[in-house]
């Protein structure tokens, strides 16, 4: 049995050092029913019900809070798969073989049928098993057993038989430790960015949209969260404008006058040359935040169409998004604007474009066509309020560093992802071998 498994494992490019053993995944299950698929028939979305975890809610190995909920009755019918916090989940379709170690905040959710729920004898092995299944050899094995009749699907009986190489307990512990540290750091960087963005957004809205400091002065109060010198920069009255009431002495202009919106190219005219090509950045890449697996285009395009880290991109057709791109160099595809400005700082045009995004989406959705989009005229119709240079500078001293850290964090997360993908497969295939007497901190490369 184990020699069969070893053959499989080695055939997939894994290695098995002499002192390791190998066992099928099902040998780690709590019992014969240690694997089950989630909710078969979710029924209609029931706000306030049990969150239903779908494959689409899983991003970079992290489960986001589901938006779709099932009724109490449906949940009761599928109580066997309701999460208690000690499970390992495996996706069966979409990107089959992705593993999720269930965290405390996921307790009480119920996964959809495209996700397998695994309950283990020893739950401390969850991270290690995830690492094995997501290693190069593990992926290879999963790809080999995928059933591709309609869409790539992973079967439970194949999952049960997946070979799992086993080093010593100490090694497993060590591997799990680094895997967890990297994963947690990547997740935390994303969460930190969400907080930073919320802070910048709140400050921007308070100063430039709600005019809190101006209104405070009009009521004879000191504006919150700023020193006297900064407060003195704000006027103490409003005047009428095309945008309604705005602070005295501030200007109202069109969104397309504060930044240039450069539309991307039809890149099929620039096929890859095989030599230092660029990944094409389309809406899908913008949504993912990276260009892994995207099509390629020749580098032989005008330099302004080359996207770099930190560029503001705005997809104006289909699903409308505004993001600061941190997925590395790429070529700007049509239907995406690269937004730049000589006169205004990045945060200023980024948040103003974001501010109008809800309206833009509505405009696109009210188009009769199936692919809603906006036109340049809508950028002209969208108005922005521009403060005096003094207020702009004061805001810039806070917001510019925040945007810089945002970009920095995204890049750090990317490096950690690369590191994780490079290092872990070698650890679990024995290519990077730890001494049998491994301690917490030492390892030797054999």
């Amino acid at each position, binding site marked *: 049995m184990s020699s069969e498994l070893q053959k499989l494992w080695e055939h997939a490019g894994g290695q098995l050092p002499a002192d390791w053993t190998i066992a099928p995944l099902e040998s780690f299950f709590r019992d014969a029913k240690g694997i089950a698929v989630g909710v078969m028939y979710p029924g*209609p979305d029931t706000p306030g019900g049990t969150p239903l975890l779908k494959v689409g809610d899983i991003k970079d190995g992290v489960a986001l809070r589901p938006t779709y909920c099932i009724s109490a009755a449906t949940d009761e019918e599928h109580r066997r798969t309701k999460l208690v916090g000690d499970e390992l989940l495996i996706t069966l379709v979409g990107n089959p073989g992705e593993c999720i170690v269930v965290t405390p905040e996921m307790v009480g959710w119920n996964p959809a049928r495209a996700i397998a729920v695994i309950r283990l004898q020893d739950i401390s092995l969850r991270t290690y098993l995830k690492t094995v299944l997501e290693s190069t050899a593990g992926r290879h094995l999963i790809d080999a057993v995928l059933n591709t009749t309609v869409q790539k699907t992973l079967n439970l009986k194949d999952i049960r038989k997946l070979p799992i190489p086993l080093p010593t307990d100490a090694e497993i512990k060590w591997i799990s430790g680094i895997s967890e*540290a990297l994963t947690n*750091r990547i997740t935390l960087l994303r969460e*930190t960015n969400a*907080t930073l963005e919320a802070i910048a957004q709140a400050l921007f809205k308070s100063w430039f949209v709600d005019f809190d400091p101006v209104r405070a002065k009009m009521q004879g109060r000191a504006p919150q969260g700023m020193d006297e010198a900064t407060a003195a920069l704000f006027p103490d009255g409003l005047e009428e404008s095309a945008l309604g009431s705005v602070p005295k002495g501030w200007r109202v202009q069109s969104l397309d006058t504060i930044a240039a919106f450069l539309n991307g190219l039809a890149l099929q005219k620039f096929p890859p040359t095989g030599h230092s090509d660029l990944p094409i950045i389309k809406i899908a890449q913008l949504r993912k935040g990276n260009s892994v697996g995207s099509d390629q285009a020749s580098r032989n395009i005008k330099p302004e169409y080359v996207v770099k880290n930190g560029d503001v991109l705005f997809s104006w057709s289909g699903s409308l998004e505004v993001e600061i791109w941190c997925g590395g160099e790429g070529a700007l595809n049509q239907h995406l604007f690269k937004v730049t400005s000589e006169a205004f700082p990045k945060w200023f045009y980024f948040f103003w474009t974001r501010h109008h995004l809800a309206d833009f989406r509505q405009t696109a959705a009210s188009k*009769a066509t199936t692919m809603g989009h906006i036109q340049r005229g809508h950028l002209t119709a969208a108005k922005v309020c521009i403060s005096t240079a003094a207020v702009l500078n004061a805001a810039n001293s806070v917001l510019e560093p925040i945007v810089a850290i945002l970009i920095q964090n995204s890049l750090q997360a990317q490096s950690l992802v690369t590191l994780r993908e490079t290092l872990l497969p070698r650890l679990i295939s024995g290519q990077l071998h730890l001494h049998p007497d491994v301690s917490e901190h030492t390892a030797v490369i054999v």
Partner: protein
Amino acid sequence: MLDDIKKTLWATADKLRTNMDAAEYKHLVLGLIFVKYISDTFAARRAELTSRLTNPADDYFFHDAQPGDIDAELEDRDYYKEVNAFWVPESARWEALRAAAKQPDIGKRIDEALTLIEQENPKLKGILDKRYARAQLPDGKLGELVDLVSTIGFGDNPSTARDILGQVYEYFLGMFASAEGKRGGQFYTPASIVKTLVAILAPHTGKVYDPCCGSGGMFVQSERFIEAHGGKLGNVSIYGQEANPTTWRLAAMNLAIRGIDFNLGREPGDTFTRNQHPDLRADFILANPPFNISDWWHGSLTGDPRWVHGDPPQGNANYAWLQHMLHHLKPTGRAGIVLANGSMSSSQNSEGQIRASMVEADVIEVMVALPGQLFFNTQIPACLWFLCRQKPAERKGQVLFIDARKQASMISRVQSELTDAVIDRIAEVVAAWRGEADAGDYADIAGFCRSVPLAEIAQHGHVLTPGRYVGAEEVEDNDEDFATKMQQLTEKLGEQMTKGAELDQLIRQKLGGLGYEF
């Protein structure tokens, strides 16, 4: 209970279809259900008369009846007419057909029975489809179908049996529409759309007209509405027109089955060129015309009195339908029309000018944007137009916009519907806006409904897409002020940064352990 019966019946009927096309098979099945229905109704009335004629306490009591008198009396057609029952000759009654179900010539016998029924009932002339002898079904299948139809409502009392037959007829119509998929929508509008139209229009008395009535679903729903609101069926008269001959027959049977009195014109015909009700001025018009027909134009339509707001473009009938219906409204009448979304914003050819003229003439009352995937046969998103000649005084110069795009519930992977709760909510908003008694006060709801003055619609180039006017839904802005929010966010950030530093340290140490110092 009845739902299970319907499902079982459908499954059985569908099995008998073997490989016949659903569009063809539909007429066989529905025709048989109809014959059973009129035959059962006739038999029930006859049994009732027999007992009443011999009951001394009844108005109908026949004094001193001689043998044969009762039988002769039972032949009086007026007894049947007064309850909207059809006269069915003996050899055409369902029992006769059922007895012959196993005969090889059952198809021919059914056709002959249909001919007899038509001869006896001028109202059914040309409505029954005599296609049974020619039906391309394998041997014996038609007989099995007769046996199957015999089981519907069998053993129930006559009035229950009739109701069951009516419901089965309607259920089958819907299932056939779904089975025919793409083409099914030509004769069938999904129930939730019809219900929405009816709930907003509230037809309760007077003339109800559908110029492209398909299988008559609008009328059936209107009847339900009237009954649900304690009205009498006799308070409305039904006028319809339908161009497709087979669909026209389905409609006539559908209405006859419910005992609704109807006028579907002398014959099936094109609404624009062979208007069956030229002088009709209706109280209520409900219609789901086919979307965006491009080959509707005929030279004879130049300068037609219906085109009050401008000649519709020859390549699209949407604005011809709108103006046709407006033309047929009483001064106090109202119309509700299902159309493709493009109709609300199109400015091709003359459509933009016609729409502007209709807006300025103040004949557009309510616009409703619908969710996608409501139809069997098209993914085109649709909308509802409501027209009227006289708005309530306080609503003159205003249009009510309702955006129901986000109100759908999915009933299958590819089909959605509006639930009764959603339909009621929409109807309540419209009733309040019109200022109807007991409807409460109207208020705009961001993201859902708004009453808009004509001047603002003109600013938008007379585009009538509700999404433009109702605004975005109120985003839950938690009321915490800026300072509190910043306090919370910065605390969170502090924790994340501390944790981040610890993790960075741990990763550094782990990688150092592998021999990578940095």
